[in-house]
């Protein structure tokens, strides 16, 4: 039986991948473990190794095709094995079925009906104007993440979130009417995409993401202290022009959120601090500099696994995807410099406990009991009116490890 080549899941939040290159042409010889094709996901470009040895046939996902994870994209026939009929075209962007077993024969090609059904939901049926497509390309956004407000759901330029007018690079999505927006600030060495799981659980909400300085596209000018970082985040918040938001931050982003809430209390409807920094001196300095400085997957993986309680959540493929975003040495240098400013010598150099005493909007702290980066017991310094939600078997990233539960909490107050 031929070995089926499937679109692999290389990233936790990935539902589809786009084939960006084939290293072997149809009819070419392949060896298990050798590079077979490249894919692009929302986050990264990855090389995928061949799952078998033999001859490559029936390439049904061509360069540029977007395919749901688990979908077959080609087959590898062993030497001497009879090559069957070519399957007829991929189920592009269909809902991902259970990953095909490698020993199964090629799945029959979908019928035209199936293709058109899937096309209505998937990227192949996506309507976007040339301008919207160009803006999304330039802003490195995935069109399938955007909601079109034009005729028949066409994505227009106004549906593509604007580039950062501020150092904190806010992006906005979801409905904009009626509801109070949720404003998300990611943690150290993370990025706005880390909220994807929680956002999915929240459903159609107006969500605004802010980016920390020295992260993502903002590596130019590193804050020299937490006060400097907090000031910049406050300016960025002011630039957003939001009169009322539910503010949610994670780790260093939670510290930034608390600092903003302290100076802009009337604009914050509620404050949610997930594994916040700033409530005590201890922090896992080795993990901080380990994640920030690791130049390759071998050194990054072990540190990333300290973030979650269940190390299996952090797959090799996930580590490769994260590393791909951190290939630029300037990004790593900027974050090491930021770590040195706010967490020098493995100590949290700033203390926001007084601020936590001052803020009077509804506030909660969410923490995993198995956090190996910041001890959850820092939460015990909070005043009695701050709610505390602790999760068992959860590490430093409750929003990734327990997204449904966090979304449930956020919904409780109509957030």
């Amino acid at each position, binding site marked *: 039986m031929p070995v089926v080549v499937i679109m692999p899941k290389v990233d936790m939040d990935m539902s589809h991948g786009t084939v960006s290159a084939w290293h072997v042409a149809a009819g070419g010889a392949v060896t298990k473990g050798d590079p077979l094709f490249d894919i692009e996901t929302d986050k990264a470009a990855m090389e995928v190794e061949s799952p078998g040895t033999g001859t490559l046939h029936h390439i049904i996902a061509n360069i540029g095709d977007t395919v749901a994870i688990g979908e077959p994209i080609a087959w590898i026939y062993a030497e001497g094995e009879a090559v069957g009929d070519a399957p007829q075209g991929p189920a592009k962007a269909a809902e991902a079925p259970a990953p095909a077993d490698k020993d199964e024969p090629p799945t029959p090609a979908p019928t035209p009906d199936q293709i058109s059904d899937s096309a209505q939901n998937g990227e192949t049926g996506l309507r976007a104007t*040339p301008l*919207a497509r160009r803006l999304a390309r330039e802003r490195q956004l995935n069109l399938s993440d955007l909601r079109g407000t034009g*005729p028949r759901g066409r994505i227009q330029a106004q549906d593509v979130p604007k580039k950062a007018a501020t150092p904190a690079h806010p992006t906005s999505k979801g409905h904009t009417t009626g509801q109070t927006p949720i404003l998300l600030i990611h943690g150290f060495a993370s990025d706005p995409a880390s909220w994807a799981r929680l956002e999915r659980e929240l459903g159609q909400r107006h969500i605004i993401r802010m980016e920390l300085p020295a992260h993502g596209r903002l590596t130019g000018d590193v804050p020299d202290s937490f006060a400097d970082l907090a000031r910049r985040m406050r300016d960025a918040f002011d630039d957003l022009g939001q009169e009322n938001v539910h503010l949610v931050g994670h780790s260093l982003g939670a510290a930034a959120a608390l600092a903003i809430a302290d100076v802009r209390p009337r604009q914050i409807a509620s404050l949610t601090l997930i594994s916040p920094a700033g409530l005590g001196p201890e922090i896992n300095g080795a993990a901080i500099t380990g994640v920030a400085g690791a130049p390759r997957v071998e050194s990054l993986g072990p540190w990333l696994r300290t973030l979650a309680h269940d190390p299996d959540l952090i797959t090799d493929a996930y580590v490769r995807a994260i590393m791909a975003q951190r290939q630029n040495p300037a990004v790593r240098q900027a974050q090491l410099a930021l770590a040195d400013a706010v967490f020098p010598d493995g100590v949290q150099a700033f203390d926001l406990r007084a601020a936590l005493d001052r803020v009077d909007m509804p506030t909660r702290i969410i923490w995993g009991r198995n956090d190996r980066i910041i001890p959850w017991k820092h939460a015990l310094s909070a005043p009695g009116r701050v709610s505390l939600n602790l999760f068992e078997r959860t590490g430093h990233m409750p929003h990734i490890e327990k997204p449904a539960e966090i979304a449930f909490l956020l919904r409780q107050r109509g957030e």
Partner: protein
Amino acid sequence: MSRELSYAEAIREAMDIALGEDERVILMGEDIGVYGGAFQVTGDLIDKYGPDRVMDTPISELGGAGVAVGAAMTGLRPIFEFQFSDFATLAMEQIVNQAAKVRYMLGGAVSIPLVMRFPAGSGTGAAAQHSQSIEAWLAHVPGLKVVQPATPHDAKGLLLAALDDPDPVMIFEHKLLYKMKGAVPEGRYTVPIGTAELRREGSDVTIVATSIMVHKALEAAKALAEDGIDCEVIDLRTIRPIDRETVLASVRKTSRLICVYEAVKTLGIGAEISAMVAESDAFDYLDAPIVRLGGAECPIPYNPDLEKAAVPQVPDIIAATRDLVEGRR
């Protein structure tokens, strides 16, 4: 010095200047002499320059055009007037196979500095055979230049520019514009062939219009401005060669394009403008489908109501623009 002249007066003044400056310039056409032209454009020029330079031609467009081509080929600068642009059909051999081709076929040894004037368009109740807009037919022919002045200023300036041109230039004058008044500078000036004019700056949508449609587009833009829709209106002025950059730059700015022209919509100047944008880098700036407003797919009707309905009117432009900008297309 600038003063108000009608479109027809501006053309006459241009011809007067040319006749006075350059003895090679002659006027030819049916009834352009004593009668003053079918639309009284040549007027009394025969009194000033005599029948040798303001020549009535027999009622044969093919014959007259042939003489004009030959005169141009042998050193004169004829301005040949058709009574109606529709009658160009009778002279197609001379226009398309001779005037447009001779320079190429003789390896550039001769050129045909010929100007032809075509009263064009509907709205005068002259029915199907006297109301067409056939400028795109001629614009399809390499070797011809085709202009459509929309204002008295441009009618004079483009005619003088056409006379300066070494090759045949076809001027389509909308009959309803002849009486329109506008500021016209005194003396000689030219409007360069191949340059469009931005008639109104705007940010929401680019309306590319030709001839009389420029005025309808401007009127629509004025009404739309009250609703907060900011139209940019481009007067194309020349349809061959098209001023590509002016159109593309505007589309890059507004991200929306409407083409308005009186000629039959299908296979016309609107298709050319749309394709030009779609083929260019400006494609990546489009945020809505391109819209063409052109004439109906029928001969121009004699019935006055139907005649109006057969070509774009101001309310049509307003409705189409609103639909486009407000996201219904």
